[in-house]
């Protein structure tokens, strides 16, 4: 038991070390580009969401919501040994479905309408996930390549559907959704003093808990993880690995699709743009999942952390820095996370030294 605890401790401290190294790298970057303002700019990053009081914290939660969802999507698939690089396409499909239903199905009563929007997003995301899933399970097509293809197909298809159904020609974007389709603020905007926060973050947290329960407490989750660890062994143990592969990506797609709905139904003045750009939230989800080492709870905190320093990045612009510094820092953190072996051995060595010292003391 003690050994497991120590492993967890070492794993956690390795993550913290990775974050510190990433921040240090960011500080050096700021120092090199503008030495006189570097300290101020860096303080802004570290203060992150706390700079603007409650509004800042609310904004952190708002930014974190979609990337927690895409992070869950990528992390869930990782657990089954699949790399869901297609989260972007699933995110876009979900976002479109939600916005479409939000604009067109105004005959639905208030209260029901927004729920139908969310369900539409979940279905659309799942539909976008089922294609790579089936191709992987029955045709042995790498989910990485089919995911990439589905991202581009999704991008163009969403653009086409927006232009033919819910198009605001003047602004080259989607029309605003009906009032009844906007996620409830639930009084949170009062608590957080005018931030863009809404019920989305609560839905995201519920999803985190659901994913945790599925993975850790159910037979189905156990089977999924078994497939991820060793496909042949799980096949031998009588697990239907094909079904599990499909279900895993479908659920991952549903999570990403719901993320799209949570962002575009937030009522924060964000519209679907008709651009030839694959949704960046999906790729952000990959780093969130990696930072949180594919653990749902870890993903929640990783999403919050990235939301936190993203707000810091906006504030940093006050001192003449470009907010992309945040992306550089996140990349550095993810990279350092990849070096966790290095950190872990360092920590083990440190612990050994300490223990040896203690032993010597006892001997003396």
């Amino acid at each position, binding site marked *: 038991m003690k050994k497991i605890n120590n492993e967890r401790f070492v794993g956690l401290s390795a993550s913290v070390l990775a974050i510190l190294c990433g921040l240090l790298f960011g500080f050096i970057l700021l120092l090199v580009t503008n030495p006189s303002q570097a300290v101020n700019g860096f303080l802004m990053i570290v203060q992150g969401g706390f700079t603007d009081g409650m509004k800042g914290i609310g904004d952190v939660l708002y930014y974190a919501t979609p990337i927690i969802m895409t992070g869950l999507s990528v992390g869930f698939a990782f657990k089954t040994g699949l790399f869901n690089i297609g989260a972007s396409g699933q995110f876009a499909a979900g976002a479109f479905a939600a916005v479409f239903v939000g604009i067109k199905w105004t005959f639905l009563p208030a209260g029901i309408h927004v729920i139908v929007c969310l369900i539409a997003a979940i279905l659309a995301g799942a539909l976008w996930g089922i294609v790579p899933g089936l191709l992987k399970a029955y*045709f042995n*097509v*790498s989910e990485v390549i089919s995911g*990439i*293809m*589905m991202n*581009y197909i999704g991008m163009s298809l969403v653009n086409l559907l927006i232009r033919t159904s819910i198009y605001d020609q003047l602004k080259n974007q989607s029309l605003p959704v009906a009032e009844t389709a906007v996620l409830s603020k639930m009084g949170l905007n009062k608590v957080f003093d005018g931030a863009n926060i809404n019920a989305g973050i609560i839905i995201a947290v519920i999803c985190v808990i659901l994913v945790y329960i599925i993975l850790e407490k159910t037979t189905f989750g156990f089977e999924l993880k078994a497939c991820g660890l060793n496909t042949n062994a799980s096949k031998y143990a009588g697990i239907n690995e094909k079904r599990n592969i499909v279900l895993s990506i479908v659920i991952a797609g549903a999570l990403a699709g719901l993320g799209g709905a949570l962002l575009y139904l937030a009522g924060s003045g964000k519209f679907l743009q008709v651009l030839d750009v694959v949704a960046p939230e999906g790729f952000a989800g990959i780093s969130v999942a990696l930072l949180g080492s594919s653990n749902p709870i870890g993903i929640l905190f990783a999403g919050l952390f990235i939301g936190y320093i993203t707000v810091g990045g906006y504030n940093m612009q006050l001192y003449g*820095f470009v907010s992309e510094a945040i992306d550089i820092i996140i990349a550095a953190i*993810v990279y350092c996370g990849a070096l966790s072996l290095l950190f872990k051995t360092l920590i083990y060595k440190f612990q050994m030294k300490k223990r040896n010292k203690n032993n010597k003391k006892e001997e003396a």
Partner: protein
Amino acid sequence: MNILYFIIQQTMYFAIPLLIVAIGGMYAERSGVINIALEGIMVMGAFVGISFISIFQDSMNGQLLLILAILVSGVVGGIFSLLHAFASINMKADQTISGTALNMFAPAFAIYVARMVQGTQQIAFTDTFYISKVPVLGDIPVIGDMFFKNCYIITYIGIAIYLVAAYVIKNTKYGLRLRACGEHPGAADSVGVNVAKIRYSGVIVSGVLAGIGGIVFVVPTSTNFNATVAGYGFLAIAVLIFGQWRSNKILMAAFFFGIMKTLSSAYSAIPFLNALPVSSEIYKMFPYIATLVLLAFVSKNSQAPKAEGIPYDKSMR
């Protein structure tokens, strides 16, 4: 006939960068290291290469500048890929993680530096590299019209790179060793091959070629660099898998995709396609759908390198 020439000339612009980068990716993967960072390395190569052009275009002109810029891009790509090699070979890291980190880093870095230095994100350059007709060769009937008109020197550099790379991996001692490290590193190690060294070389080759691929993609298709290569690094990975990690199939895959891409982006200049009542988005989707359908047929017997993505651990031999 003119339309056919036009399609072939356009196809070159799209297919050559894909071909170079996918061949680079092949070197990394056949040595046993998954390099998902190709996109980021392309961005990095293109960023430094285009900056180089933009700085020196007043003092230098034409093809020499382009060749120097290509060299610079290659060197930068190679150096940048060292980060991935270090993480995945020395640190035995999960290769998708460090690759993703590089993919995130490159565009952010390019935007950051560009905006800090010149205030705007785009780096503009003047296209002085366009060749409307190659002397002598361009006068050959049919072939001259197809391959030696409206082109860039990079087309020929790209094909030369492909030929050399395909030859080296198939027919040299080094190529054999590289392939052995991707299939069964333990066996290679047992006969005295330095697996780490070979894998380093594989990743560096992929970095150099991806860096070159970055600038080769940007020069013919744009007049400014906006910190993106439009997902071509990921497409190159798709071409690599589509080509089953084999150089001759990669060539076909790259040109298949190049033709599809040409039809989808230049359809308005091709009369019989333009006449069809189909919207532009359908054409844009077409290359990707076609690839998916084809993949479903050809993927049953995947020939992926067996030890791909698995860090080599001597004690596990």
